[in-house]
């Protein structure tokens, strides 16, 4: 009887929905857990052309949404993305270009994340893309805004090169509106334009002394100098005004360039600070001091140089419409910070100077105006716009999202089809996990970051954070709780036997009095017990389905082509082993057909019998160390089930010595002596009677 696969529940995986480009983090996390690192990279790269960038500097809203965060700490998704993107396997990745060019020329103005993402996607759709960049180098804010200790230039350059390798033309040193006009582009045959020029101008502080003193600089120009390797001169005592990531970047850069003391001056409290928490922590670790609830009101000068910064303390008043409490100066709390340099980092705006030459490009509130935030079309036909220039300063992933949306719109526009309003951003709030489930969920600590010691950091701009090792990355990936990849009940097949309700280690399936079973796809952690025990096979599971396992068993044995006994080994992916261990197992023990499973608990008596039936001479199950097992009690049940399997195996005339359960060592896949003895024993017993 054929089982119909139950309909997929609507996939509301929190990590996916939180990502502006709907990256399915589960997909590559699962592949990392399976030690299939090259496929993990391909899964990321097919959707995001800047994975190494995002793995380092993304504000990872996915982690904020992660269900594991309700249990202990979220999965280190960004670090896993970086791990996938840093490995040597990335060089094998090739994207298939369409056979034929569409013949359409598209101009991309700006080579930041929005422009690069659009260029990438459009090139893959067969359009001829040219990027126009005002600066002599590509990358936009990623290149001139983000310091190398967070995003090494080489990483960015390599990812840009891989995008350009799709056949994208580049023109640097060309500023739109000045060196070339949108009208010129049309004359040159460009059928569509994507304007993604970013927001590269700092807001003015608007306080006395700002324009008169040389040591008052804007963060954008300071960071641009830093990032272009100009080693700008910094003062001994530097004040950075602002509380965003640009302020933190400026402060940490200033310390690296020799500043003895850096004060970040922020008008609200730590709680309201818009910079990423980990960035704030790192800045403090490196020695930056933060003056919270402090506003500057005058820069003091002496002989044309900065001699101090007059500030006043604030207290927080009423919440503003955005929900942040407004700072109110406390009368009489004025004081002077002893500084000799001031960096203004209170936000960036679009540099509108060039747009005078482009009156058709509509502006509103000092940004480029788009008619529709989903299609990104402007009032000017064939001209689309996105990224910081449209939204104001935002994150890299938001810019990439804009670039991808623009690519979809431009492609439709070029084909003469109506534009699609791409799905609105699905900022669905993560469902709350019931406390009963949280209590029953195994706790596994998040991986520790490894970073340069403070003294080494301040010597230069070497990258601070290290990439995860393979071991750490796989362990981290195995923490994933597989939202929406778990059990699905086929209601037409269900006989309301309640087995799922009784076997679930978390108590997730529930029933009404008519026996209709419901399994919450968000709460389910895909342990696989219900799918295994269901006596009528009315439950299937998305992660590592039973059908996949059956295929792995049969295909693996069929493909085993060598003389000598064929041994099927079930390995629990939760063991402490790496990709190298898998490779060397295959090399050193060609007899072993490995079947990797997300938990040995998923193995049924029939799987063992199926292995023998398919021609295995021996079968063993390698259990992971109990402390690595997220469902240790269910693995105990496995042993009971395997006792039953043993009875059947022996009853059908197979020697009991052909079927064993062993324990994986603390490190590695198998105990060499054990597995050698097992294979030897198979040899002694002769080819299985079933062969």
């Amino acid at each position, binding site marked *: *009887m054929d*089982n119909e696969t139950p309909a997929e529940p609507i996939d509301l995986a929190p990590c996916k929905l939180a990502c502006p480009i709907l990256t399915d983090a589960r997909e590559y996390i699962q592949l990392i857990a399976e030690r299939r690192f090259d496929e993990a990279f391909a899964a990321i790269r097919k959707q995001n052309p800047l994975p190494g960038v995002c793995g380092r500097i993304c504000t990872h809203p996915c982690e904020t949404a992660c269900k594991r965060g309700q249990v202990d700490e979220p999965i280190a998704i960004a670090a896993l993305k970086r791990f996938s993107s840093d490995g040597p396997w990335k060089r094998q990745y090739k994207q298939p270009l369409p056979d034929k060019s569409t013949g359409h020329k598209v101009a991309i103005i700006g080579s930041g994340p929005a422009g690069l993402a659009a260029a990438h996607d459009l090139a893959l759709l067969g359009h001829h893309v040219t990027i126009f960049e005002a600066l002599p180098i590509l990358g936009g804010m990623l290149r001139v805004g983000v310091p190398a200790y967070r995003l090494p230039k080489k990483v960015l350059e390599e990812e840009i090169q891989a995008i350009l390798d799709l056949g994208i033309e580049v023109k640097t040193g060309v500023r739109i509106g000045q060196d070339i006009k949108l009208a010129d582009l049309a004359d040159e045959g460009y059928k569509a334009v994507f304007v993604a020029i970013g927001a590269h101008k700092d807001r003015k502080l608007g306080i006395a002394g700002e324009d008169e003193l040389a040591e008052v600089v804007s963060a954008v120009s300071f960071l641009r100098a830093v990032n272009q390797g100009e080693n700008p001169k910094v003062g001994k005592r530097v004040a950075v005004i602002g509380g965003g990531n640009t302020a933190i970047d400026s402060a940490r850069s200033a310390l690296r360039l020799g500043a003895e003391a850096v004060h970040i001056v922020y008008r609200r409290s730590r709680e309201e600070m818009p910079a990423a928490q980990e960035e704030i922590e790192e800045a403090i670790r490196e020695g930056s001091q933060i003056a919270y609830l402090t506003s500057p009101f005058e820069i003091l000068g002496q002989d044309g140089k900065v001699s101090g910064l007059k500030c006043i303390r604030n207290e927080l008043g009423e919440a503003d419409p955005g929900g942040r409490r407004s700072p109110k100066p406390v009368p009489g709390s004025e004081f002077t910070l002893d500084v000799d340099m001031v960096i203004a980092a209170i936000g960036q705006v679009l540099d509108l100077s060039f747009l005078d030459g482009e009156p058709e490009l509509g502006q509103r509130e000092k940004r480029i105006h788009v008619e529709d935030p989903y299609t990104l079309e402007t009032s000017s036909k064939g001209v689309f716009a996105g990224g910081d220039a449209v939204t104001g300063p935002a994150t890299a992933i938001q810019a990439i999202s804009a670039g991808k949306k623009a690519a979809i719109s431009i492609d439709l526009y070029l084909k003469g089809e109506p534009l699609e309003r791409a799905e609105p951003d699905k900022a669905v709030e993560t469902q709350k996990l019931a406390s009963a489930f949280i209590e029953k969920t195994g706790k596994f600590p998040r991986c520790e970051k490894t970073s340069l010691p403070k003294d080494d950091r301040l010597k230069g701009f070497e990258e601070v954070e290290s990439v995860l090792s393979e071991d750490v990355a796989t362990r981290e990936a195995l923490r994933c709780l597989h939202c929406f990849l778990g059990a699905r009940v086929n209601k037409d097949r269900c*006989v309301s*036997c*309640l*087995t799922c309700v*009784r*076997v679930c280690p978390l108590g997730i399936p529930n029933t009404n009095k008519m026996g209709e079973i419901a399994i919450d796809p968000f709460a389910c952690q895909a342990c696989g017990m219900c799918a295994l*025990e*269901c*006596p*009528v*096979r009315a439950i299937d599971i998305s992660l590592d389905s039973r059908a996949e396992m059956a295929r792995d068993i049969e295909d693996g044995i069929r493909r085993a082509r060598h003389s000598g006994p064929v041994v099927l080994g079930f390995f629990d992916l939760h063991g402490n082993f790496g990709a190298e261990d898998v490779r060397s197992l295959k090399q050193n023990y060609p007899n072993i057909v490995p079947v990797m499973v997300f938990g040995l608990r998923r193995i*049924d*008596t*029939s799987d063992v*019998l*199926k292995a*023998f*039936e398919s021609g295995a001479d021996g079968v063993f199950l390698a259990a992971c160390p109990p402390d690595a097992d997220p469902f240790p009690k269910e693995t105990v049940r496995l042993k009971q089930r395997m006792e039953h399997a043993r*009875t*059947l195996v022996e*009853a*059908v*005339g*197979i020697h009991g010595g052909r079927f064993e359960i062993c324990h994986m060592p603390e490190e590695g896949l198998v105990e060499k002596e054990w597995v050698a003895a097992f294979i030897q024993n198979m040899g002694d017993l002769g080819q299985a*009677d*079933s062969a």
Partner: protein
Amino acid sequence: MITLEQKKLDEILDMTKRCKRLLVMGCETCAAMSFAGGQRQVAELASAIRIAKKTSGDEGEVLEETIARQCEPEFVDLSGDKVSECDAVLSLACGAGVQLLAERFPDKIVLPGCNTTFLGVTEELGVWSERCAGCGNCILDKTAGLCPIARCAKQLLNGPCGGSMNGKCEISKDVDCVWQLIIDRLKRLNRLEMLEEIFPVKDWSPAGHGGPRKMVREDVKS
């Protein structure tokens, strides 16, 4: 539910030894719920029989089939084509299912893969116990909802025998004396005086002692 237990594999192998083309047929109601004859056990058992046939050098093919209930002729008949390809059917249903298969497929060998055990309840996953003997004349109103026919080894109707010790039956210290349970429950319900009513001699004819039972509902019957 009707509880079932799969027969020992040796017995099954022995009875299916000569079958050249065997259909293992599951039943997805009571048999499945007893973990004795649902699709999962069909796969397991069919696999075991195939291996046994190979290891013992017997020829033969083993096919798999599962239907909703083997006690309904309409379901059984839907398997007709598959059954016709085989020389024998190993039914994993209760005795009723096995017999209906035999009735619908008069030319086929039909074999029982399970023992039908009792009418019972699930105590917990993997544990069932008997509650009803199907005697055809329910007296649970008089015995506080606890059945002495199904649960007393002697089927006593007027109180416990002398073998009731500390609430347990003399046959095993693991078996509750149902009469102790009845008394305890009547006490809790404040209806102990019900025991003063003497049960007359039980008429066992509805229990099958009057020959095979048949039930006809004139109002429902077509």
